């Protein structure tokens, strides 16, 4: 019954903010699975079905054949991630860095490597490294040092990169994450081998003709953290989820924007396969050039399939240690360079920089300043009784999580707040390409809205209208209700009058209903709601309408 009624108002909803609704149907992202209120069930079902279709189709392209055909083999995946830190200035000089600045405009003698210049460590880099190391549950090196990694390349102005070699700032950590529900879910822990600080190189801009290249040193000297994982991942999905969790962490911590397209988060993946039960690892292949998590997922699964195929054809000797590039256009990996043995970077301790010593006090200070991290948030949300789907969505983005938490602090019920945020609000944000802190809606007003609906002051439908108003124009729930006279009609007599009027105006439909076409209740409900300008209490309306339709049919 409720479902019929709901469909009745949905057409109305399209008029109010059609774009939001439209985008939800089209994109079918995780966030659209649940409707803000209990009434939303039918739609939820239809969305889930839609998801299933999508899932199966994606599984048929990559995952299914892999899992089915990998009998006897397993893939071993390790990831090296470079995170560009969002410090105000570079690692060893006072130049700022802005992505997209005109070439060679944020450089100075130090990051240009001019003769006589010396690096001076930006202490923020250590702060950020320690933050991330603590978030990754690492052991910190009380004393670490910088080393020089030496090679010649035009984007490396000093002829060496300042990095950390044998004593990184942090080692032996782990990362906890929850796999997406639609891929089977499950909690995973992946080991972190080390975290170290280093500087980025510049960029080469190759000419179209290929006959010359320009050097842009803007990025030279920008601080990076390199995070090396243990080879704990077994599939493209796990690898992509690892990277996504890392991105979440750096964003929670505010140490990086984690943007893959801008190169603020770059993953190099090592993939090998081996027969199950075999201890030694197979020949590993490095994959580069993946600029989204889904590309990572697909690139790795492609590479696993490629290696498995070679094994199954008895050509495992064709798997050589090399670096392969993910070609997004062709959806395959191609050889970039084959390694002739190990490169000798002739590391030695950087004599221009003193050792980095982190004291217990300093570490504790940073530890106590850490925000609640994604894993803890997820566990807390889970304990509130939210579904894993909700938990994953809400904890995904720190600003969403903060908004949600703040809404709860203002008295809203977790499930209701989650539904609003994940439903209408998320849809709007996605459609407008905004983040939750860029709109005028405040957690206080969302909480107020929820309580107004719950208290029966306004209907859910009116609630949606008010929400739209709050998002776009701001203001308070109370004021909007007053200004627009939106208080819900709960007087049964008034509703009955409207029902009578509608039944009278639509004798043909009434006859059809009574002839057995009971689906038409939705039509009547919609008409009555329209008549009430959306203010009729839906439960009452439904009840009265039902009584009228059925009573008179006798």
């Amino acid at each position: 019954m409720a479902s019929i009624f709901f469909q009745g108002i949905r057409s109305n909803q399209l008029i109010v903010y059609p774009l939001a609704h439209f985008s939800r149907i089209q994109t079918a992202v995780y966030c659209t699975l649940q409707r803000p209120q209990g009434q939303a069930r039918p739609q939820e079902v239809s969305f889930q079905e839609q998801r299933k279709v999508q899932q199966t189709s994606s599984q048929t392209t990559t995952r299914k054949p892999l899992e089915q055909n990998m009998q006897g083999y397993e893939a071993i995946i390790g990831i090296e991630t470079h995170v560009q830190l969002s410090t105000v200035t570079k690692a060893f000089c006072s130049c700022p860095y802005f992505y997209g600045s005109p070439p060679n405009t944020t450089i100075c003698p130090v990051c240009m490597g001019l003769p006589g210049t010396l690096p001076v460590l930006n202490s923020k880099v250590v702060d950020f490294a320690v933050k991330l190391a603590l978030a990754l549950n690492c052991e910190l090196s009380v004393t670490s040092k910088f080393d020089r990694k030496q090679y010649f390349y035009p984007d490396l102005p000093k002829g060496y990169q300042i990095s950390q070699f044998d004593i990184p700032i942090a080692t032996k950590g782990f990362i906890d994450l929850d796999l997406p529900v639609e891929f089977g879910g499950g909690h995973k822990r992946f080991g972190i081998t080390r975290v170290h600080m280093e500087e980025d190189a510049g960029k080469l801009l190759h000419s179209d003709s290929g006959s010359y290249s320009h050097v842009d040193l803007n990025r030279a000297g920008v601080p990076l953290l390199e995070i090396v994982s243990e080879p704990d991942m077994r599939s493209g999905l796990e690898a992509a989820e690892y990277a996504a969790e890392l991105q979440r962490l750096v964003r929670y911590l505010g140490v990086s924007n984690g943007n893959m397209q801008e190169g603020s988060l770059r993953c190099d993946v090592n993939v090998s396969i081996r027969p199950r039960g075999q201890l030694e690892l197979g020949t590993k292949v490095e994959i580069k050039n993946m600029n989204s998590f889904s590309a990572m997922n697909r690139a790795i699964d492609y590479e696993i399939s490629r290696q498995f195929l070679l094994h199954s054809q008895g050509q495992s000797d064709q798997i050589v240690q090399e670096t392969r590039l993910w070609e997004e256009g062709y959806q395959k990996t191609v050889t970039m360079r084959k390694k002739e043995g190990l490169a000798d970077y002739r590391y030695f301790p950087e004599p221009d920089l003193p050792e980095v010593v982190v004291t217990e006090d300093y570490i504790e200070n940073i530890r106590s300043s850490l925000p609640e991290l994604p894993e803890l948030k997820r566990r807390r949300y889970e304990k509130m009784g939210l579904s894993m789907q909700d938990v994953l969505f809400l904890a995904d983005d720190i600003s969403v999580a903060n908004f949600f938490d703040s809404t709860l602090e203002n008295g809203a019920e977790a499930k209701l707040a989650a539904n609003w945020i994940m439903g209408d609000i998320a849809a709007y944000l996605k459609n407008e390409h905004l983040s939750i802190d860029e709109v005028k809606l405040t957690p206080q007003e969302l909480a107020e809205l929820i309580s107004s609906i719950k208290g029966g002051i306004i209907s859910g439908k009116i609630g949606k209208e008010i929400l739209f108003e709050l998002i776009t124009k701001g203001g308070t729930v109370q004021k909007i209700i007053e200004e627009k006279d939106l208080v819900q009609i709960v007087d049964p007599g008034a509703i009955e009058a409207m029902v009578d009027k509608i039944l009278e105006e639509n004798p043909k439909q009434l006859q059809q209903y009574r002839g057995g076409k009971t689906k038409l209740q939705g039509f009547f409900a919609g008409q009555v709601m329209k008549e009430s300008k959306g203010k009729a209490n839906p439960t009452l309306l439904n009840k009265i309408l039902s009584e009228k339709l059925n009573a008179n049919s006798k």
Partner: protein
Amino acid sequence: MSFLIPNPRLILPARRLALPSSRSTSPRQLLHGADTASATLSSPPSNTVASGVPSSEILSIRDSLLSRRRTASDIAGEYLDRLHKVEPQIRSFLHVSESAMKEAEEVDRMVAAGRELPPLAGVLVGVKDNICTVDMPSTGGSKILKGYRPAFDATAVRRLREAGAIVVGKTNLDEFGMGSSTEGSGFQVTANPWDLSRVPGGSSGGSAAAVSARQCVVSLGSDTGGSVRQPASFCGVVGMKPTYGRVSRFGLMAYASSLDVIGCFGSSIADVAILLNVISGHDRLDSTSSKRDVPDFANELVSLNNLDSKPLKGLKVGLIRETIGEGVDAGVVSAVQAAASHLEHLGCVLNEISLPSFSLGLPAYYILASSEASSNLSRYDGLRYGNQVGNGELSSIYGHSRANGFGDEVKMRILMGTYALSAGYYDAYYKRAQQVRTLIQKCFRDAMNDNDILISPAAPSAAYKIGEKTNNPLAMYAGDIMTVNVNLAGLPALVVPCGFVDGGPAGLPVGLQIIAAAFCEDTLLRVGHIFEQTLQNCRFVPPLYGAN
């Protein structure tokens, strides 16, 4: 201060060299009290030459300016005339400033306006060409940087200018400081003012020769393995290698970053003390520069007429046995032994001591310095600055720019360093050398527990003939035996002329090296000053200057 002065009251109070800051006070008054006008220290240079006891040329210039006896333009003119006159023979400068006279006139305007004169007002300073100057080319003595003009002044140079100094030019050196004779310059060979057929030492040979020949008042050098001290010894001038970290390295083209330090040359201890005062101190652009307070070095020097008969009574001096043994010229040994006797005479307690790890210093130094050099010189690839050679293809530019730009000695050290850092060799060479370095540091610490200062020759011989060792790099390297250990330990050391050996038209000077504990430059300068002021029968003015 770690040594006792027998009756401090006699020496210390109000009887110090001071940097006068007020235009109304004569330096003479500050230096020696209002009534001691006869002091040697403030005598003009001509008197110095006559008396044989070195005095501060910086203070005498200041005195002349404040008393308006001479103008800064006069003084600069005199130096520049001499510079140009002897330059064809000495060839100590790679570049001479075109604005020196203008800067001197500016000082005269300050004097005329009655403005307070900064401590080095009107003082002509030579700067080693591996130290960056914004207004002059800075090549490091290498063809790969021919014509290169830095975008900034080195911190030491900036401090010089802020102190009113006139940077008169850029002095010659072994390419990037790699050498001990200045024959390794990519541009020219500098001659020793004491004997034009001999080397001035190196790598700061240009800076030492220029001060020796009075082409400038004082100069800056750099010392990685002895590059200030050995040429000071060869040229008969005072050379100071400060503690590692005392002077900012920002703007010094790196040779071996963990050993490099900017040092000073002067014709008297007082000048070196004043110069060191100006350039010392923490610099936020060099994170290896020390945050320790810089004592007023010049102010702690005691004037000659306030000395008692045993001014260094109780000071414990260790003569390093390994430095006066085999392989060291007899003339050098006897000059140093005479200097040791002189110190005893001044009240020091002399002990011969042993530094067991002494002989390990040289190989460890050459491994570490070459390793760091191989890395530091990677930036000279011909791409962004300096001399580019090649057909436009990347590896050709790298290869040809470096092949043409670097000299043989530099290439050899890059190769040695690259080898020492290579996988599979690192532990046997670089790591081992670092262990030796730790051992040497410990040896010095032990020795410093028992002694206030250590002494040794500054080099195993006096200046040798140009060309004598150019085909024998090992013999050349062996000449650094006296100095490299001090760099490995990071300690300060002073070289003060102490005697002569036969050779050349007027004999060849020999320097005494005095080593102190880290950041005890004040001890070195105080001892050096008393030594210098009491040394009899020596006049460290080269014949070339005398002829002028």
